[in-house]
């Protein structure tokens, strides 16, 4: 018996059937009909204070759970406010489904109130988007959206729903898997790697004398962390984890070299530079990793595993391209290597390489000059204390800038899905809403957001959402009164000509602001206050806490490969510059 319901009821029912437990959103005119059946649904709705917050919360949720985050907002300005999170999710391959309201189909194209061309505007920042023109299409479109968002290279999908489509009645039908696949004849992501390429990869790995495993976010998306660990240990090969892959391989593992790239550590950068084989697993030779491409890892052969064929050869031509899911491919490579070893083949001696890498590691640990008594507080010290006092399993989120780089450098990520940040797009203001989304996804975990004073002022109002919805997070604001990373570039590359980077040292009052949003606010100005403040913050779990650390504005992030420079010319901390010949 077919049952008549409205498009809006079909939408909410379809979301329930897709397993959605939380929607981050904010209602308005055109999406109103969808908010009515939501009242009767078990789905939790989190009412945000700005639509951008809903998008980043959905991303944070997806980061830590692996399930698609869902955001729902109205048409026009709400949809345009969603563009930044969509683009952020697209750049970082975050599975996300965004529902937007639209003016009625009869009004489309007339410049109606709160009308905008949402699918047109978001076309280049989504993996796919659709304007749904009849209520009957709602269930299939929702199924397609979740299928596309979560398979292949994950990404955001947007569904635009005109108001009359939500109001009209339709005959409920829940499409089968076959129907979904048949409706998408052009979408068949490759999962399994090519067997010949996998054998070839195994052969190169056994022959390599200076191999490095170059691990990107794809390993996390494929839930391949344990397969990666097995491979790394089998071939006893050093591992670098990119900004998007922090936690994919434990930082305390002896084979882990940490983060490479523009602000990576000298060992990770140099090991890639000098390697004879880069085993790229789910990374994309981003410009922040390669530095000047023409001089990047000049002697390395390349194995490139990526589920997106367009990444193969986009920046660096691989010797062995493998299109497929990282977990499946890594497992196949392990099998191939084991077969070859069993049939008597031997791995080349990599002991000299490993000892060379260890030498770099000894010479070039991460370094900053600790503050003398009376000096300003060092941001790196705050990060170390946050790290050392963090409860087991803490999830760390960050915004974008110096504090982000220090977070990635100084934290010890020993577990996958404990690091949430905006890598590709570099979205300032990401961390507070993303941390809220992460806490919703993992309420059992402590969630710390490390933010800068610049970033915090972009999205801090979502702490009101956190208070009202009882989502207790912790925020560490590293307040140096500057747009710190921009300041660093102006100091280093613009002859200390500081242009429009100085924020106010006293405004806003972060403690009062935190309190006005229902949070506990704590100000820290000296090193002795750091640990007690963090302990106090960690002990509060019935509300959010904002700890403002007044830190030294002159601190810079080192090492640094300036934009356009070769990785060979990495700038070390001034205390290390004298021994740079060790990096040979």
């Amino acid at each position, binding site marked *: 018996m077919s049952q008549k319901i409205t498009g809006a009821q079909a939408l909410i029912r379809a979301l329930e059937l897709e397993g959605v437990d939380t929607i981050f959103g904010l209602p308005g005119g055109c999406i109103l009909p969808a908010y009515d059946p939501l009242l009767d649904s078990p789905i939790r709705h989190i009412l945000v204070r700005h639509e951008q917050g809903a998008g980043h919360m959905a991303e944070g949720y997806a980061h830590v759970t692996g399930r698609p985050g869902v955001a729902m907002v109205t048409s026009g300005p709400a949809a345009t406010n969603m563009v930044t999170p969509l683009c952020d999710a697209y750049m970082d391959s975050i599975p996300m489904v965004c529902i937007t309201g639209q003016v009625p189909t009869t009004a489309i194209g007339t410049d109606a109130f709160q009308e905008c061309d949402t699918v047109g505007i978001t*076309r280049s920042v989504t993996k796919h988007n659709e304007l749904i023109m009849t209520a009957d299409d709602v269930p299939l479109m929702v199924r397609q959206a979740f299928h596309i968002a979560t398979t292949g290279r994950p990404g955001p999908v947007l569904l635009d729903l005109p108001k009359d489509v939500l109001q009209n009645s339709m005959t409920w039908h829940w499409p089968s898997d076959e129907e979904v696949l048949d409706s998408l004849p052009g979408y068949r992501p*490759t999962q399994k790697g090519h067997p010949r390429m996998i054998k070839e990869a195994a052969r190169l790995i056994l022959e390599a004398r200076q191999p490095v495993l170059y691990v990107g976010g794809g390993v996390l998306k494929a839930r391949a962390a344990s397969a990666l660990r097995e491979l790394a240990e089998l071939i006893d090969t050093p591992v670098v984890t990119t900004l998007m892959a922090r936690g994919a391989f434990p930082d305390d593992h002896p084979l882990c070299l940490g983060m490479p790239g523009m602000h990576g550590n000298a060992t990770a950068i140099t090991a890639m530079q000098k390697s004879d084989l880069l085993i790229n697993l789910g990374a994309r030779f981003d410009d922040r990793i390669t530095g000047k491409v023409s001089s990047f890892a000049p002697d390395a052969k390349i194995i490139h595993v990526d589920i997106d*064929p367009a990444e193969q050869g986009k920046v660096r031509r691989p010797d062995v391209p493998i299109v497929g899911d990282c977990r499946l491919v890594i497992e196949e490579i392990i099998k191939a290597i084991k077969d070859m070893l069993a049939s008597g083949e031997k791995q080349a001696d990599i002991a000299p390489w490993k000892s060379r890498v260890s030498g770099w590691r000894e010479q070039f640990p991460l370094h900053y000059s600790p503050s003398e008594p009376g000096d300003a507080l060092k941001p790196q010290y705050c990060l170390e204390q946050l790290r050392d006092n963090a409860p087991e399993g803490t999830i760390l989120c960050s915004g974008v800038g110096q504090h982000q780089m220090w977070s990635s450098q100084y934290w010890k990520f020993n577990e996958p899905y404990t690091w949430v940040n905006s890598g590709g797009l570099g979205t300032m203001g990401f961390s507070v809403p993303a941390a809220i989304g992460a806490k919703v996804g993992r309420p059992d975990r402590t969630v710390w957001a490390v933010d800068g004073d610049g970033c915090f002022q972009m999205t801090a109002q979502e702490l009101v959402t956190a208070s009202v919805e009882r989502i207790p997070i912790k925020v560490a604001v590293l307040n140096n009164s500057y747009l710190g990373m921009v300041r660093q570039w102006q100091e280093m590359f613009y002859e200390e000509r500081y242009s429009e980077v100085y924020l106010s040292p006293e405004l806003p009052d972060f403690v009062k602001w935190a309190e006005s949003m229902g949070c506990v606010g704590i100000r820290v100005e000296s090193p002795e206050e750091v640990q007690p403040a963090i302990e106090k913050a960690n002990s509060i779990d019935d509300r959010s806490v904002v700890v403002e650390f007044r830190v030294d504005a002159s601190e810079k992030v080192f090492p640094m490969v300036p934009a356009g420079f070769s990785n060979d010319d990495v700038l070390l901390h001034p205390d290390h510059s004298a021994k740079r010949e060790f990096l040979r």
Partner: protein
Amino acid sequence: MSTTPSQPAHHILSVLVQNRPGVLARVAGLFARRGYNIFSLAVAPTEDPNQSRITIVVDVESSPLEQIVKQLFKLVDVVKISELDPRRSVERELLMATVRVPAEERGQVVELVNIFEGKILAVGFEAITVSLEGSPDKLDDFEELLRGYGIVELQRTGRVALPKLDKEARLRAVKGKAS
């Protein structure tokens, strides 16, 4: 643009897409977003009303063909992409032009149209509208010759192409659907 048989100066991509609203915008947007140049573009439904064929000509120097194909494949509505080797495919294009020509010289233009096996679509006192269907090279030559008389308006459709039947067309269907 002229083509020598040995060195094609352009690539022809024959892109089969689902016939859905916005699909052309997706394809065109991708070219713009990635900085690729479209030389010409023709879109029309195929024998299957659910699918359309977009014939895109890209010139060789401006664009890394492999990346274009892979990026196009990532569009969910793109079902199949074939690269047609210009040497092994038939290409056709339609040209229409209005030429300013006084009655006493009209005969010369008519003669030109006849030589090229074109058509005369409309005749006025001071002008004549002609059409020619054929290979893009032939259209280039025709256009060049007409230009001497003074072209008032000219419209070309952009080329469409199919593999040649005589020899097995070298139809490089790109394997592996993108994610």
